[in-house]
């Protein structure tokens, strides 16, 4: 049973990866109402870019920064050239971003080949800590640490800064916020870029755990959707809670009943969608 | 028996009471006008009466039946119909199609899934009658979005008559119309006959006094006062709330 603790840490760290990934999506979805279904593919791109830097330059921190920056740039291009012109047209946003996701997946395949790549954890984070006879991988603890920091940061921004207040006001009543003279467009764009950068960070940090393979985009997108719906949008706590539920469910599921693991996540997703669409902690959607 | 009765109707949005304890009735054949400053809750009240909005408290009775929880379309079948303040038509269809879709709403044939709509002679004849009655027959092949505002408003009212209602709720029927067009609308509403009861939201006082027998003033979601036209015209409070103390009601703009 104590092995469950190790699985628990794995689940927790996986949950934090999901959180970093879903936070970005939740922000664009909740704040801008934009359906960006390329989010999973972008995470994958971040992972591959990070992988490339780690494998050629062996600089972990640089990899994180470059991936975050690259994704922010690509995200901005996506917004400026396409999403801006599809304001309010959700199905079209979905269709376009699905197309972008398919293209990114094929480009990744083209550049890096079909075989899954493994990213080694950086030397200073490899190894285990032994407590009471159980071995806890240091890297997993690192991931949890990063996740907590980001969670804390975002939570702080949401509740205690002017930017957070603007975002929350905008989610309640966009027109009013704009008419108060607040440059909501700028804030939205910055939020979008922040979300992209977070996905990049998630990609690099998560790569040693989730691996990197050209078809992972779909899987991660679906997990993101589940997390965001289950947890709810509008509150960062909701996204974290959703990530926890799905991360732990998936990890424990895989450990004990491998065949049906992801299946349960979908059941939970549908159940939440139909019974309580606002999610566990989310703004009232209906 | 009153045709329509609202008892203690209220609705809240968050902490704001948009409509508070509104109670009134309307008799068959009556012409009742609902006036009030912007934001007074008139359209919200309409939405409560037609079922687009569920009240937080109170009841609505129509022809003696409690319809508080009835759906929007069920109320239409019972004999209620409305027009919208912001023109709500089928913008990308022709006027003829608008009329046919409108008329079909209370007909069993609306579920027919095999016979072409345009082979339905009875429906086409009914549509022709409806359009001719509002002088829109010549426009029947025009796409609604290409019509002038005044023509759209006429079609808006035509559609609200399509279900042969006993009670017609008109929301600002003369909204955005010229004086000439408003006078035309006033005449048409007056000519609707005693079989149709009319509850009308209006800002145009010529329209109100030209049509209504009774007037209710709504202010901050509550009924501030009600009475006949003369009573309202000479009421100090109404003047203060609505027109500003210097202007006299009905004395023109």
């Amino acid at each position, binding site marked *: 049973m104590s092995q469950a603790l190790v699985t628990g840490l794995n689940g927790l760290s996986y949950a934090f990866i999901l959180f970093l990934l879903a936070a970005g999506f939740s922000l664009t*979805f909740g704040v801008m109402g934009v*359906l960006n279904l390329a989010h999973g593919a972008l995470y994958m791109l971040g992972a591959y870019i990070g992988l490339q830097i780690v494998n050629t330059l062996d600089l972990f921190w640089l990899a994180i920064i470059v991936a975050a920056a690259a994704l922010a740039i690509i995200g901005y291009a996506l917004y400026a050239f396409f999403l801006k*012109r*599809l304001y*309010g*047209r*959700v*199905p079209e946003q979905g*269709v*376009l971003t*699905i*197309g*972008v996701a*398919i*293209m*990114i*997946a*094929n*480009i990744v*395949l*083209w550049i890096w080949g079909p075989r899954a790549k493994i990213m080694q954890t950086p030397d200073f984070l490899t190894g285990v800590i032994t407590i009471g006879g159980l071995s806890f991988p240091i890297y997993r603890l690192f991931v949890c640490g990063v996740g907590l920091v980001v969670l804390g940061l975002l939570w702080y921004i949401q509740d205690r800064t002017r930017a957070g207040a603007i975002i929350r006001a905008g989610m309640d009543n966009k027109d009013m916020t704009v008419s108060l003279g607040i440059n909501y467009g700028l804030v939205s764009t910055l939020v979008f870029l922040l979300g992209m950068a977070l996905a990049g960070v998630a990609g690099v940090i998560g790569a040693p755990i989730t691996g990197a393979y050209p078809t992972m985009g779909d899987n991660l997108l679906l997990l993101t*959707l589940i997390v965001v719906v289950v947890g709810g949008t509008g509150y960062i706590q909701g996204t974290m809670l959703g990530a926890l539920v799905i991360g732990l469910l998936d990890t424990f599921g895989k450990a004990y009943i491998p*065949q*049906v693991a992801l*299946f349960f996540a*979908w*059941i939970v997703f*549908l159940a939440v*969608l*139909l019974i309580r*669409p606002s999610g566990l902690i989310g703004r009232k959607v209906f | 028996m009153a045709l329509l009765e609202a008892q203690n109707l209220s609705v809240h949005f968050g902490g704001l009471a948009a409509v508070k304890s509104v109670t009134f009735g309307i008799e068959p054949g009556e012409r009742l006008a609902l006036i009030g400053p912007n934001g007074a809750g008139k359209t919200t009240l309409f939405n409560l009466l*037609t079922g687009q909005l569920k009240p937080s408290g109170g009841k609505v009775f129509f022809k003696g039946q409690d319809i508080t929880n009835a759906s*929007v*379309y069920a109320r*239409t079948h019972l004999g209620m*119909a409305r027009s*919208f303040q912001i023109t*709500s038509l*089928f*913008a*990308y*269809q022709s006027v003829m*199609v608008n009329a046919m*879709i*409108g008329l*079909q*709403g*209370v007909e069993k*044939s*609306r*579920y027919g*899934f*095999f*016979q072409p*709509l345009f082979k339905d002679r009875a429906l086409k004849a009914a549509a022709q009658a409806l359009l001719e009655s509002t002088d829109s027959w010549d426009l029947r*092949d*025009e*796409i609604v979005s290409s019509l002038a505002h005044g023509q759209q408003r006429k079609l808006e009212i035509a559609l609200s008559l*399509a*279900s042969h209602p006993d009670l017609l709720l008109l929301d600002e029927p003369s909204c955005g119309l010229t004086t000439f067009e408003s006078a035309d609308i006033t005449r048409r509403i007056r000519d609707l006959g005693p079989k149709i009861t009319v509850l009308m939201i209006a800002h145009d006082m010529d329209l109100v006094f030209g049509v209504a027998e009774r007037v209710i003033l709504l202010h901050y979601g509550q009924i501030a006062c009600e009475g006949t036209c003369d009573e309202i015209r000479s009421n100090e409070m109404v003047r203060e709330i609505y027109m500003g103390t210097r202007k006299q009601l009905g004395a023109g703009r």
Partner: protein
Amino acid sequence: MDEELSQIPGGPPIAVPSPQDPAARRVPRPLIETVLPIAVVAVIVLLLPLFIPSFVSSLVTKMMIFGLFGLSLNLIWGYANIPSFGHAAFFGVGAYTAAVIVTKAGFSNFWFSMLIAILATAAVAAILGVPAFRVFGVGAGAANPIYFLLATIAFGELLSRMAIVMRPVTGGSTGISGIPKPDLGLGAKVSADQYYYLVFAIGVICLFLMYRIVNSHYGYGLRGIHDNERRMQALGYNTWLYKYTSWIVAAVFGGVAGVLFAYFGSTLVPNNLSMVTSDISFLLVILGGTTVFFGPLVAAVFYVGVEYFASIYLPQRWPLIFGALFVIAIMMIPWTKGRYQGLGPEVLRLWKKVTGGAA
């Protein structure tokens, strides 16, 4: 200036003269001019296999199947403004049901498998539709159907995972293979070459039915809901019932396309239920346009053609082209009057030029 297309989406191609024209009355074209293009196309399609190598008729068969798939989604997306990212769920259910009936349950009759597939698809649609429309919303729903779209994605993914999990029935992740060519009963077995005609026949029947539906009283009810659901309710329409039933009807036609697909390729995999296949359906709808009835059919011809050439010259890069098609379709296809003006209207314009237009 070119004459305007009939503004009744999906209606027969009719010239609408300008308002100044004293004969400003819509005159239905003589039957010969609406039936003619259909007859011409039908004859071409029927005679084609005599003149072309069999791999081309195989492609045309695929065009017809995908055309039906796209048209079935168009019923709800184009006519009722119900977008769906999970239409392959029904396509796949139809396909898998027919395949299981024939390969595992021991019933070899084509019509029987089709019947059961239709019933299964209708049942699944009826079940999934109840919760789906609960999150659709009115008014805001059509404009902002995010949660509905997510639900449709979930349906496809869930069914796809069920197919993986139910290995004994569905063959798990390897799927079902070796689906035999259709047995029409009474000893009539359809060969690979003759399958073309079977697909054509069923396709024509389905198209005819769909055409009648969209031009019927019910069909105009859907169009009304597309443009202004709130008003429809105010006029007395039970819009939920319309949407729900159209969802089931669209699912059934999608399922029929799936059955045809199962017999066509002889192999089915779980991806036939998931978003990978749903992608194709809404690409066809957007590319083909939602103003003209046969839009998605035109798009299917285009799509299968592009896919074929890509598979020859750039096989590794087909997904890149595929993805680019989405981006191009969205960015380049005008969206006016609430509808996509895609390849369908273009083909119609060409046809009118060729036949001299309407005087």
